[in-house]
């Protein structure tokens, strides 16, 4: 009995690549959402607006403390009951984007806090206006060290996108499972996609490590 069916394996690759393409789209759009929403959340928290800021803080803690799978179920099954009906794909992208925005919000916060107080003090001493202080002093310095961290989250989102297969999105894992159940052979599809995930995340993580060394030099 042959254990690995190479012919089969090769034949399913085109379908799997389509799934991979969807995964990549989900990842990039979702990540963009998380960057934008996370920034908004970080700003609101920073401005310490009464009532709203604490709510956002709690929201960040809650989203980070609960599973993405359950959040996806909520979006997919609960929202329609409230009259909000979207297709599975946009729903999934928004869910993963919002989930990760809780993490990016924390990254932004850490980036700002890490800036040595002396920088703010020097800006004050030079009478720089607030917006200039932010644009020319704070943001350029705060952004550099957080880029590797955000990069890591991008890679994490790429792998977590597999969870969206549970709400009927036929991305990479979804494609593999549908092939598996259709042909009653799971070994080849799942193994191949495992290697595909690895083939993309590993080089990316090496790139991130390189960025880390450049942006966050350690002695």
């Amino acid at each position, binding site marked *: 009995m042959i*254990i690995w069916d190479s012919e089969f394996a090769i034949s399913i690759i085109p379908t799997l690549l389509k799934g991979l393409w969807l995964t990549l789209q989900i990842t990039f759009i979702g990540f963009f959402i998380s960057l934008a929403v996370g920034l908004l959340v970080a700003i609101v928290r920073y401005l310490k607006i009464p009532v709203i800021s604490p709510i956002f803080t709690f929201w960040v803690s*809650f989203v*980070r*403390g*609960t*599973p*993405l*799978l*359950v*959040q996806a*179920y*909520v979006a997919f*099954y*609960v929202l329609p*009951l409230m009259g909000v009906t979207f297709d599975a794909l946009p729903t999934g992208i928004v869910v993963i984007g919002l989930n990760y925005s809780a993490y990016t919000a924390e990254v932004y916060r850490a980036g700002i806090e890490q800036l040595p107080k002396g920088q703010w003090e020097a800006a004050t001493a030079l009478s720089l206006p607030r917006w200039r202080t932010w644009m020319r002093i704070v943001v350029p310095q705060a952004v550099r060290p957080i880029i590797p961290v955000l990069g890591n989250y991008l890679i994490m989102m790429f*792998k*977590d996108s*597999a*969870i969206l*297969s*549970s709400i009927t999105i036929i991305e990479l*894992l979804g494609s*593999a*499972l549908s092939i*598996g159940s259709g042909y009653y*052979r*799971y*070994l080849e599809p*799942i*193994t191949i*996609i*495992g*290697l595909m*995930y*690895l083939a993309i*995340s*590993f080089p990316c*993580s090496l790139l991130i490590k390189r960025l880390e060394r450049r942006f966050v030099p350690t002695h």
Partner: protein
Amino acid sequence: MTSIFDYSGLLLQGLGVTIVVTVLGAALTLIVAFAAGLSGLSRHRWLRWPSSIFVEFFRGSGLLVQMFWFFYALPFLGIQLAPLVAGVLALGLNEGAYAAEVVRGTIRSRAKGQTEAAIALGMTPALRMRRILIPQSIPAMLPAFGNVMVDLLKNTSLVSLVTVSDLTWRAFTARTITGQTVELFLTILVLYYLLSLLIGWLIRYLERRFALDRKSLAKARPIKAMIGRVSS
């Protein structure tokens, strides 16, 4: 909300399974973390390389894929794993790979001077690791381990996708029967949140305990031979 309480028994069962999976997964994670982490620090290439390969492989290929592979693909190689085993195995190996980097990084970053002082006193590498580097590193590892454990808890929800009847699975199946989608999912969201807070508190407790412990441990250990000399 009546159906919630009707099904509260089943949800509690699911909660129990989730906790069991978390604990078993955590145990495997710690074992894997120290095995792979310490190997990654070894002088011997034949230990370091397999450790790196293991870590990069399990971090890079994605937990859910690994779980499905253990459950759906492994049978084709002749090995049939029970759903719970497949789930815990994937969780332990995956989170263990991440935690291994915590172990390796914390111990590596111990001030070089500690290693040198131990060398100067003639300690072998094994002795250095056992008596000096690891004990010092544990308090520093705790926060990062805490993150790994919370991650582990959240990821236990994925075992519902390989037919383990955990909290998520119970809610999912109960939903199709009762249609009380909102209450069920909200309830389990809150339960997961509480569990993650619990883990956070546990870690903070351990951090305090291990930080103080140096002093309290020292006081607690009786040095009997000392008492005679000290009082003279």
